[in-house]
């Protein structure tokens, strides 16, 4: 029993280490790509590491209360949990994580865990900009949730299961078996929703980081901020792995390294897509993004579901 637990702990550490480092590098790379598009030199790809180390090395930090203190903890726990409930690499024991705890539904609801905790922490800071950011973020979240849910339901109907592992299993045997091609409408609805989920342009009014300090992390600093930066990598990684599993055949190969490579390539492309869209479009106001998500993507999602019903 003890040995089993220790083995699992070791696997978890490996799995987390891989996804954290990969996602940090990915974020750095994408920031650099975006800079290139805008005609700047940009930051080095390892800038996220520097940020995290810097934040954690701050000599002072300020707390506004227990919930403020716990906010980043909730946030990181949410990111870690979300990742750990997803089987990252199909057929791999090390990367199966804790996917035996629950299926896709668990994952979809656990996403809220970190957001709720973080929002509470940010709320206790007492800074109105945090609350404004949260109000915008949550409102936008419910909006993109609808096309996302529709696409997930369409997939569940198509494969007759809510287990992520089984959904990936059903997509094996060549790219024509990927849900992206067997259920393109669901994929489109899901991938548009993913834009909102990533919080990149045009759906970035939530954090609006450059112009004014607004959004949940407004009052966060030092280790708190470092924790949020770490989570950003893990949480993004988790979501990309999820979408890879849902629509793009997952990452499967008998050689684990090849499988990881497949995951890297696929998630890189998924993130690249978000970056390209973000670099090409200006920012929506909150009510505009809500209307956007409840418009065309939702109709596509409904079409995907209806196609499964007939």
């Amino acid at each position: 029993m003890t040995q089993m637990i220790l083995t699992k702990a070791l696997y978890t550490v490996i799995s987390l280490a891989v996804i954290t480092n990969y996602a940090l590098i990915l974020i750095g790379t994408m920031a650099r790509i975006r800079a290139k598009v805008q005609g700047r030199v940009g930051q080095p790809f390892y800038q996220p590491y520097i940020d995290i180390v810097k934040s954690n090395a701050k000599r002072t930090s300020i707390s506004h209360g227990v919930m403020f203190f716990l906010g980043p903890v909730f946030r990181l726990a949410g990111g870690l949990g979300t990742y750990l409930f997803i089987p990252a690499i199909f057929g791999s024991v090390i990367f199966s994580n804790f996917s035996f705890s629950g299926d896709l539904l668990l994952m979809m609801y656990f996403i809220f865990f970190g957001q709720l905790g973080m929002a509470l922490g940010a709320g206790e800071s007492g800074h109105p900009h945090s609350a404004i950011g949260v109000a915008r973020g949550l409102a936008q979240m419910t909006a993109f949730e609808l096309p996302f849910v529709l696409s997930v339901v369409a997939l569940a109907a198509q494969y007759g299961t809510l287990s992520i592992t089984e959904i990936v299993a059903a997509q094996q045997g060549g790219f024509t078996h990927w849900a992206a091609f067997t259920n393109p409408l669901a994929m489109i609805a899901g991938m548009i929703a993913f834009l909102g989920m990533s919080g990149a342009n045009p759906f970035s009014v939530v954090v609006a980081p450059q112009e004014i300090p607004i959004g949940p992390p407004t009052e966060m600093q030092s280790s708190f901020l470092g924790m949020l930066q770490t989570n950003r990598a893990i949480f993004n990684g988790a979501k990309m792995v999820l979408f890879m599993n849902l629509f793009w055949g997952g990452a499967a190969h008998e050689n684990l390294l090849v499988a990881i490579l497949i995951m890297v390539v696929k998630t890189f492309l998924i993130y690249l897509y978000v970056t390209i869209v973000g670099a090409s479009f200006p920012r929506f106001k909150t009510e505009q993004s809500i209307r956007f998500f409840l418009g065309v993507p939702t109709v596509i999602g409904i079409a995907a579901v209806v196609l499964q019903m007939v």
Partner: protein
Amino acid sequence: MVSPVVLIAASLGFAFLYPLVERLGERAATRIALLVLAAFAGTTAGWTVSLIGSGVALTADTAGFVAPLSIQLQVTAVDALAMTVVTLLALAALVQLTERATDRWHGKQVVLFFVLLLGSYGLIMTRDLFNVFVFMEISGISVFGLLSTSRDGRVFEAGFKYMVASGLASVFFLIGTAFVYRSVGSLSIADITAAAPVALASPVGVMGLLFLVTGILIELKPAPANGWAIDTYQAADPGIGALLSAVNATAMVFVLVRVMPILAGASPVFVPLVLIAGAGAFLIPQAQALLQESFKRMLGYSSVAQIGLVVLAIVIPAAGVPFAGVALAVPLVLLLNHAVAKATLFWIADATGDDASGFGGSLPASLRGRPALLVVAAIAVLALLGLPPFPGFWAKWSLVMGLAAGGHIGLLVVVLLGSLLEVVYLGRWLIMRMRHVDDDATVVSQRIPADFAESRADAVSGAASGASDASGAAAGAIPVGATVSLGLATLLMAGASVAALLGSGVGMPVLIVLIGVAAFAVLDVLRIPLRLQAIVAIAGLSWWGVSAVSGAALTLQSGFVLLFVGGAVVQLVALLARPGRRAGLVALIVGMVLSLAALTAATSPLEVFVAWELMTLTSFFLVVRGRFAAAASVRYLTFSLASALLMLAAFSLATAANPAFGTGGGVIGTLTTSVPWAAVLLALSVLIKLGAIGLHIWLPSSYAEAEDEVSSLASSVLSKAGILLLFLGAGSFAAPLFAGVALNQVLGWIGVITALAGGMMALFQEDIKYTLAYSSMSQLGYMVLAFALMSHLGWVTALYLAVNHLLFKGMLFLAVAGIVMRTGTRLMYQMGGLIKRMPFSFVSVLVGIIAVSGVPPLAGFGGKWLLYTALIEQGWYLQAALALFSSGIAFLYLFRLIHSMFLGQRKTHHDTVTEAPAAVLIPQFVFLVIIIAISMFPNLLIKPLQTIVEPAFASSVRWEGYTVISSLGYWNGNAVMYVVIGVFLAPLLWLLAVKGRTYRVEQFNIVFAAERPHTPQSTHYAYNFYGHYQKAFGRLLDPWVERFWSGVSATAGTVSQTLRAWNTGNPQTYALQILLYLFLTYLVARGGL
């Protein structure tokens, strides 16, 4: 035994002697008159006792001849009973009239009173047609005499109208009598009845009978030819109103009873004719009364309507067979119920000197602060509305069952619609009278104060003037006479109720409800403090609940008993936080809980219905206690009783098709009916109670405006009654409706749209209680959706959601109760930053909202997992997506709730706020512990729920350790909990390790671009939190439903106004209307209009 003639002679004799008696002094004479009346009551009561069950009648022939030559008087047991009640009411009326503060009756008024009584006795006892005419005239003239002695011009005018109308009626009756005598050659009713099929079947005979019956009907004051009577009720002394309605009308009904066999024997046209007359007489005045502003006039409308109902009941015997003779039980009970209740209300109008009815903040809350009078008024109103445990209820039940069994669907609709209208105006009167003095009776949604000092001052002065109004009214003492007569009437009603209840055959659970309420009412009378009552209630209910379920297998019944009683007992602890007395609170809560328990134990449709009505009543009186709950309780009462009436209709149709309907008792599907209409009505009834979209407008304001502890009970415990009903009626809802669409599919869509709409509306509330109320509506929508799946997993889900909702909504409402208690506001934006002042409440709300929103690892996720798995399993994909969307919306309003209250900047005047009292926190933490337990070990809850559902469906999930596995997916709540603890602890430990460098700063230490805000407490971002959401949805969020019901209400008002305009107040018009009525009866009798 005393001969019937003696009573007639004594009345007449005493009337003649009274001027002599008055020589002894006015007071002494009235006392003697009361003694004489008491002797009459003794005589009639003696007759009742000796005749009842004997089957014989007391007969007396006059002038030494036998009938038909003599005038025969006869008293059957029924007659004797009616005469006893009439005499007792007359006695009470005379006490009231002679022992009041001003305008005491004396002299000729007492003489006329005895003549009126004589007329009424005669009408009941005589068996001679011409003699009926004589007594009609005696009654009419005495009423006219009583009215015309008034010096008030309006009363005199009313008396004149009364004379014209009753004169016309007598003329018709006399003409009819002449025709009948010509055809039969006898005036004895018995002879005429025997001869009718032959002698009166000719056109001449029918014509004569037509005159005869029209004369009787006019005397019964049927709409639309009754403006004269309504004017009389309005203008006359309420004491006369009581006499007319209780004594005179009761006697006239007996004439119809005597004549009905003649009519039915002579021609088949008369039964439908009287039916139509009765239906019109019932329905039209109910509509006319809707906007009535004079209370006496409203009571007049109600009186003529009730007599219309009695007429219907006479023609449609309870046995359900189309007219086959006169079965008197139902009409008699209705009649006596009406007589006592209506007299009571007239006397109350006299005692309070308050004739205003209708609506609006200016009306005095004249029953506020007068508990005894309020109880008497409430009893009278409830009895008139035909609610249990009063006698009218049983009669109405039998009548409706009879109507359905006889296939009189049109009449069924008339009776139910009329009853609903009556609920609106009588209920409104009661609510307006008992409302809080500050309440202007307009509050049906959250109130956001305008931010101006002047308007606040206005509000305060308005409240103050309202208070002085009411205190002025309350200061006036009730006259001795009214006290005695109201007491006598209430005793009569109580006695009749007990007798009816014991005779109705309902089981012990229903009786326990009433015993419980009565027991705690006694504690109130003994002025036992609230805390002690609460402790007694907790102990009593716990003991009762444990004894009810201990040893029993887990079934739907015992499960719901646990839910109802357990949920209520825990929340009752919160009452310990309130010192002092709050009359009626514990009694009503106990009554509500016990009636919910009775609902689970009901073994017949009647018991289900009684329990349902008792639950409605107790909860209504709980809601109406709220400080600004008047308008909300009008809605609550109207919609709840509409729901009850729909249920009654459903039960009657179902029982008509299958007499064994609903006799299974407390198991799933007991109330299954194969009649599609019954199923639809049952579904509608339950949907109203569950606040389904379109039928929900009563829910938010009722839950929000009730007292805080009541809100939590109503939302967490009471709301589950509808879910229980769904399970009891389970089999009905699979019925195909149209084009292959089954009822449950419609229910499913209604459920999911309710979930979404409730969530959306909760989003934009600033008032925390409205947020939670809309949230309840949304959660109930999920339960309906899950139930509608009609699958194993769906039903487990519905029950799981019900349990979960009870736990977290109880927590949230109680937490809010504590916060409102401490901060004195319900508006969230006026709070903020309370986390440091009320940390325990924060923890409770936090766990509550995590459980509602379904975020793992808490139990709420179990509900979500079950729900979506069940939906997708059944192929309800779009519903699943919508449900998920609305669960996102729930996340929004829940975050807003916790943020606005506990986070952000604290108001400076809340710096000294303290934590909620322990008594309010304890129930929250009991629920919290249960939530954590079922989150860690979901099998603790899901497995028992499976046991409950499995009699109906085979299990569709299997368990592997803590993992529940469905055909689609799996969930291991236990593992999730451990993983979450793990991923939470790791970063936490890391942070704690570096915590040495963390500085705590004050709440207000925030910075806008290097500038500290001057008044940081004003930067709390809370008002209109989701303004952008509102913008995004635009007109989609308009209150369509509210608008629809406003339209319905306005239309009803217009109809009422139009109908009321018919009563012009002009005697000539009234005379013309009576002639037209005769013409109309002729046309109906001829078989066409």
